[in-house]
């Protein structure tokens, strides 16, 4: 019996360690909480026949940030309000970094009417603006090449620290010294993975396509379009033949490529068919059908496109067959034995 009592706290500890953890949310704090685990934006506007948004307007813009549960987390004007913009700018890429602080990184479809940001810039709801040329600095690309997907990589505290540090840097300062971004990313040990709208085959250090994942900190191609797709998909130029584009990207902060989720610019009708709104696994087919994403909003069509996507992904616990420490393996086996005995 004593032995059993000793085991209980250990079992609880183990259970806590292996149970999937929810995203760090203060419930009810903001509407953004609804997007803490999964969020997206659409390619096109539509009328929601699901839950009426808090502002009473059932029209969903392709610039609004939506939760996968059917809530409007932020209207487009709320995303860009720190830039004094009141018109809809669209939403092309998103990464939710802190629900408590309502800190969202994103990019827009359109340039600011005031000229204080462009559609290729990386913006935050706190008002930071990293111009596109700074992201592409190490690729030696001049000019705005667009920004179609973003994903911050690193420890969350480091990412928040980085964002706090750049808060005071104006767009003009970045343009004067675009190389500063690389320095600051390295200082904070974070990276920004992103994709662009255009293709740069000549001026860049290496040819980059809009279907590649690029690293702002290292100036490298994290994953080519061919890497992202299943081998049966003719993705990648020049070898396989097609660039499918990369319209949305999310994954764990650790940067484990195998856990990435993404969507493409165009559909594919081959053996592993997918639409340009489906959420795909890294090199492994569909993770979530587009219609499932939009379903809570009950649009009149089952496809409205996916333009930005965010998924909270806690690091997976180590498994018995993996690198679980021996002591935890032991307790896990004990728990399983106890459960069998109880049955």
């Amino acid at each position, binding site marked *: 019996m004593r032995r059993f009592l000793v085991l209980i706290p250990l079992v609880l500890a183990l259970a806590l360690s292996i149970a999937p953890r929810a995203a760090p949310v203060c419930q009810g704090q903001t509407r953004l909480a609804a997007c803490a685990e999964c969020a997206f934006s659409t*390619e*096109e*506007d*539509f*009328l929601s*026949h699901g839950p009426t948004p808090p502002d009473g307007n*059932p*029209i969903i*813009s392709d*610039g609004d940030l939506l939760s996968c549960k059917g809530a409007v987390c932020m209207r487009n004007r709320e995303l860009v309000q720190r830039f004094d913009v009141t*018109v*809809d*700018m*669209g939403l092309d890429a998103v990464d939710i970094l802190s629900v408590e602080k309502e800190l969202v990184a994103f990019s827009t*479809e*359109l*340039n*600011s*009417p005031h000229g204080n940001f*462009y*559609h*290729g810039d990386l913006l935050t709801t706190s008002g930071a603006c990293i111009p596109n040329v700074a992201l592409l600095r190490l690729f030696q*690309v*001049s*000019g*705005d*090449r*667009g920004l179609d997907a973003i994903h911050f990589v690193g420890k969350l505290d480091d990412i928040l620290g980085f964002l706090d540090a750049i808060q005071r840097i104006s767009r003009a300062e970045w343009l004067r010294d675009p190389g500063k971004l690389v320095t600051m990313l390295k200082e904070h040990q974070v990276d920004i993975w992103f994709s662009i*709208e*255009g*293709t*740069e*085959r*000549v*001026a860049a250090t290496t040819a980059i*396509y*809009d*279907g590649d994942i690029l690293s702002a900190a290292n100036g490298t191609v994290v994953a080519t379009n061919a890497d992202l797709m299943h081998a049966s998909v*003719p993705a990648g*130029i*020049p070898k396989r*033949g*097609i*660039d499918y*584009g990369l319209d949305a990207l999310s994954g764990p902060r650790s940067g484990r490529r195998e856990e990435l989720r993404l969507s493409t*610019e*165009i*559909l*594919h*009708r081959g053996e592993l068919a997918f*639409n*340009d*709104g489906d959420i795909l696994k890294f090199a492994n087919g569909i993770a979530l059908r587009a219609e499932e994403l939009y379903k809570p909003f009950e*649009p*009149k*069509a*089952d*496809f*409205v*496109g996916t333009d930005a996507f965010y998924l909270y992904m806690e690091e997976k616990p180590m498994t018995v067959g993996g690198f679980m420490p021996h002591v935890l393996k032991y307790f896990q086996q004990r728990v399983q034995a106890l459960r069998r005995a109880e049955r």
Partner: protein
Amino acid sequence: MRRIINTLLLVVVLIATLVLMGPTGVGSQTTYPLEECARGCFSTEEDFMMMKGEPYDGNPYISDGDLLSFTGRVCARNADLLSRFYDGRPPADLGLDAVDILHVKDRIIAFSTELDDPRGRFTAGDLLFTPGYFIPNRALVYPFGITHDIGLDALQFRGPEDKVLAFVRSIPNLCANGWPGCLQSQLKERGIDIWFSVEGTVIRAGAPSILDGYVLSAAYGTIIAKQDALLPNVVPADIPQRGVDFGLDALFAPEIVTRVPPIYFSTEILFRGERLPFTDGDVLLRGDGVVLRNEDAIKLFYPAANFLGLDALDAGGPPPEEKVPHITHIGRQTVANINGGTVPVGGAGTGLAWYGSYWRPFGRYVAIHGEIPSGIDQFRVAYRKHDEARPANPATAKGIAVVSGAGWQVEEYNLLMSDCSGWAAYYSDGDGWYDAAEYRRLESGVGMPADCTSQLALTVWNSQGPGIDSEGHYRIWLQWKIGANIYEEAFDHHVQFDNKAPEILDLQIPGGACATYGPDDMPIMVRANFYDAHFLYYRLRLFGGNPPSSAWYPPVYHDTSAVDAVGPTGTGGATVNLHTVDMSVLSAGSVVTCAYGIMLWVEDSTIYGGFDPITNQLPWATTYESWKEITFDYMPYGP
């Protein structure tokens, strides 16, 4: 040693030549094969490699900024389009979001890019022109009360080609004080317009919402077509009524000025309904669904996948054309062969056509063909009795109508199948007014890859229709509308109808019907009385015996013999001798004691037109005919 020196000299000369020639990148192309896109072009959403063949510059890599033809050719690289903006050395591929080829020979193309100018001079929302100038996005959207750059996703110039080109060529000298407002004045003054769609959406209370799926007019600040007008009812398109904005990614409307022009377009997102599903790479026709699947548009580039999206679309420049609308044929006869076929208004004529050596009237369905040039909204063929004056008010004239209920269908190009297996409804309103653009599209293939119905009638006149004197003599002429104004052809075209078959009033043989003859009675005279206003000929047939046998006598035209008693209208109202018949014309073995008969066959000279609206068949032949028989007994050895 001398050999080494010579070799070195050659190398030096070669290097010097190459240096003088300069880099030969894509950007330096000045003679790109734009002619390949004269009959239609597009761009894709994504880059790809040609797995077979190669473009004009030898590079199988195709960018989403390149201009491609439906025949599998690269007509212009993105660098070619941008060349004049960068002194021949564009910095990078900026994508291609919208296109309108305005003049192939002079390489004048209107387009927009996906990305902003790296040097900050233009944005992805601005309207660019290959000569190197642009109109800012804010000028396009100014009349909609939009003051920011909202992107440019599709584009179509509207108006006469010469006026559009004159406008484009003068752009560098226009609107020095700013484009917003000035652009609208310029477009209106010149009678042209720019139709376009935007990337963003403006939904506002108290003012019309502007969706990125709408076709907009830059000149007038109006919505040309909303989503619910572009897409069929089964698609839940438009906000807020039907529920979804499908976007508008590419556009072309082939006619210059029309009442309801066909609009070809593609959407931003796909639709998976059970009826009329489409992808965002398909070409759709307003209200009609898919006309070209994406895989068919791209297949001649041999990509590794069968979908690449569609980002820009155009049908090429208009063909040269006749400038004055006019009627060319009536009842399939050229007006030059009709008496009074083309006469000044009120001029004389009989309305008879010279065909097959005789003057002939028209009967049943009379197809009317003509030329309808661009720049016309609507046209109709008007008619009046030959002794009436033209109405002072052209709007009060009567038009020859074939309304939609007639079910007239015309073969058209099926972009999906790349052949002429498509069908389109063709009809007028109740007053006979037809859509000129639709006529030109169907008749001449304007805006289409091929011409499938090269002899489409302007209209088809039912000469036995309600209110029509089926034996009447009429004048017809062409009317057309440009805007609210009605214009008229400066000529009359006479048309004479004859829809009555010849009347055989009497047919006689000696002794009357059922008389009995023997060899001594032969030959016997056949007498008859028949009438037709446009009698052409008669002929007799003798038949009977055992086994049955028959023989036709040669036709006797009204002018065959000066001595017979028939004339242009028949027998002149009396029973007259035709000609004799004799049993010897029958096969000898058939002439036994038996019953025999004589048939009188009478034809008039009418050009008889058929009309099968379902298949657009307009068969025609000549004559109405009538016949009558009379019998007798014959005994070879005498009664």
